[in-house]
């Protein structure tokens, strides 16, 4: 994570980008059905001009479908799509100022690299001299000068990726759509291209809408991310927000590892903190703003935020704490991952940096009794959908208050 420890308390806010930024893409209540399947389920979305925006989610959640509707390859069943304030819902792709980098690159096999790159400008009727200078410039931008006369089957996957990028960017679209553009590359090339893509995006200043199912990729590259699940997004925000303050169980689980314990909000009496009574009998504190208006919740804390203390050590007064027993330890070089049993039959995952401990004998050993502690501002609160659903059902069926 990019958030350093001393910063962690100060959680960045969405408002950090200028609030008046122009909207590059706007989806208004967009729905897409394929027969019975609802691929996109009422999405409202605003992508700001010049930002690197990612759609992140598991396979089949509707990322590609959303992107294809923006590109014009798919018509929405309902809703509205705007590009730079213009309604383009029913415009064909060739009338939209948007270009796409396809997952398999879709380079034209019968044309040279130069002709591939020049394709869009030729269709627009740009003068030959300008095409030539822009194509050369583009091939330089993607670091492929001298490849003009090759055919797509004479270049590597990584190079094809760059050609696809050049072929789209040369048209200077308002928005560039990328559907898992690095999906076919091996890990090393992928990492390299992530940096490259980010550099190019900064350089050309074009809005990128980027589809990926790789949370790390989305986190390192994006200005903002929409985390999608089953046809809609569950949370939208900057990577830090999504990681530090996930609002749903799905987001908490999809981005990184989370420890979640069920509980109920006891009191939000005054001050910065809410008191939360966990179902395992422990009472902890969490930022009040996160808990307000909720009753049944899941309290979350990231594994690297937890510290393990000896039973005789003093845990700072303000910290949340509970007793634990080490169940398993796996040494991973940079850090050690522990499984810690805590009251209520819960098991927490804890990452401890191997800063102070160097040899194996200094690690916590299975069976050791410890105290688990973390700062209250590192707690996050997620709505407990299962408890809410259960409660709803109970009231519907029996019309009686749900006993806890």
């Amino acid at each position, binding site marked *: 994570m990019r958030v350093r420890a001393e910063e962690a308390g100060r959680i960045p806010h969405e408002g950090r980008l200028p609030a008046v930024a122009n909207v590059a893409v706007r989806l208004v209540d967009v729905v897409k059905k394929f027969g019975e399947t609802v691929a996109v389920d009422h999405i409202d979305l605003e992508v700001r001009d010049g930002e690197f925006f990612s759609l992140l989610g598991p396979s089949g959640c509707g990322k590609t479908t959303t992107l294809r509707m923006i590109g014009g*390859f798919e018509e929405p069943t309902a809703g509205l799509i705007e590009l730079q304030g213009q309604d383009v819902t029913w415009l*064909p792709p*060739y009338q939209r100022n948007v270009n796409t980098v*396809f997952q398999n690159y*879709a380079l034209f096999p*019968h044309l040279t690299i130069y002709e591939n790159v020049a394709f869009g400008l030729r*269709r627009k009727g740009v003068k030959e001299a300008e095409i030539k200078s822009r194509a050369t410039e583009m091939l330089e931008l993607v670091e492929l000068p001298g490849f003009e006369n090759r*055919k797509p089957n004479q270049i590597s996957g990584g190079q094809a990726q760059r050609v696809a990028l050049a072929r*789209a960017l040369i048209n200077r679209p308002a928005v560039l759509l990328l559907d898992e553009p690095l999906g076919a590359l091996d890990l090393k090339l992928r990492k390299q291209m992530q940096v490259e893509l980010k550099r190019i995006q900064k350089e050309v200043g074009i809005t990128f809408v980027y589809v990926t199912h790789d949370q790390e990729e989305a986190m390192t590259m994006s200005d903002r991310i929409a985390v999608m699940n089953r046809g809609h997004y569950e949370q939208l925000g900057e990577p830090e927000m999504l990681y530090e303050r996930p609002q749903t169980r799905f987001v908490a689980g999809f981005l990184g590892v989370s420890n979640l314990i069920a509980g109920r909000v006891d009191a939000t009496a005054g001050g910065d903190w809410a008191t939360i009574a966990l179902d395992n009998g422990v009472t902890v504190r969490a930022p009040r703003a996160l808990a307000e208006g909720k009753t049944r919740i899941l309290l979350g804390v990231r594994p690297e935020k937890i510290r393990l203390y000896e039973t005789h050590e003093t845990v700072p007064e303000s910290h949340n704490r509970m007793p634990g027993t080490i169940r398993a330890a796996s040494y991973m070089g940079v850090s050690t991952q522990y499984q810690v049993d805590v009251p209520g039959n819960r098991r927490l995952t804890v990452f401890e940096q191997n800063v102070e401990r160097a040899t194996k004998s200094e690690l916590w050993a299975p069976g050791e009794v410890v105290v688990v502690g973390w700062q209250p501002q590192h707690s996050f609160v997620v709505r407990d959908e299962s408890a809410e659903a259960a409660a709803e059902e109970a009231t519907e069926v029996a019309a009686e208050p749900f006993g806890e």
Partner: protein
Amino acid sequence: MGGFIKRHRWIAPYALLAPGVLWLLVFYVYPGIQMFIASFWSGTLETGFTFSVSNWTNYPDALQGASAQFVRSILYAGAATLLTFLIAYPLAYTIAFKGGHYKALLLFLVVAPFFTSFLLRTISWKIILGDSGLFLAPLKTIGLVPSDFRLLAEPVAVVSGITYNFLPFMTLPIYVSLEKIDHRLVEAAKDLYAGPWRPGGAIAGLVIGGLLGGVLGYIFEYSIPVFAIAAAAAGAIIGWFFISQSFTRVTFPLSLPGVFAGSLLTFIPAIGDYVNAEFLGNPGTTMVGNVIQNKFLVQNDYPAASALSFILMAGILVAVAIYARALGTEGLTTGRG
């Protein structure tokens, strides 16, 4: 045994080729050589044939005697190839891209005529095109064509017959090449501003249609301007409404290998065909195949028939070589290159 094969891996490709090579040796090369020898014969079946190199004059003699049929063969086969292409391409395109669940059924329908004999199919055309047949009778009753108008025994009947008989040979290769085009390439083209072609397509359609119509009018021995104007109009309409830039820039170039294969599979057998001219034509529409057939089977003039066959073969070889060079098959057959 396995060890032997392992140590002599180079044998494998030859072993795989052997049956085909053997087949060709027995049924193609051997009769070919014999025919080549026969083309230097002189004499008749009664007196017996004698071989002499000085009989090379058989070639110019044969060519001279059948020059009209040669020209006609080229024109008819060319026209039929063009027409099969014009019919087969939209057909293959529709099946490949819009066929949906019916692809297999539609393909079956394309080859279904093959379940009846070639001869029967051609004779049925004779009935359809007859002076008071299925096609003309209604037109004549409503007075759309004069009562002495005929299709049968005209060049148009011969070309129609060939076109019909070889349609699957054109359709299937084009279908195969269209079918394997990645649909995302078409989407990519549209993404890169390839929209409808409109004026360009209409003008191209007008010019190409006019030219082809004129040529067909000439071959059918019918009014050239009427054909040219009608075809130009049709071409312009098709060009305006149906030809998009993604088609001309991506789909069509990528389907050229199929067009190439299909036109060879149609043109080569069509140029040697004699059945269609025999049943659907008149003495003035005979093709070189009719001459060869007549000389071999009726007149027993083996030397002239052999010489004609060789000229035909050599002509086709040269034509195919030029065609392949013009279309740049090396790049085409791989679809990339």
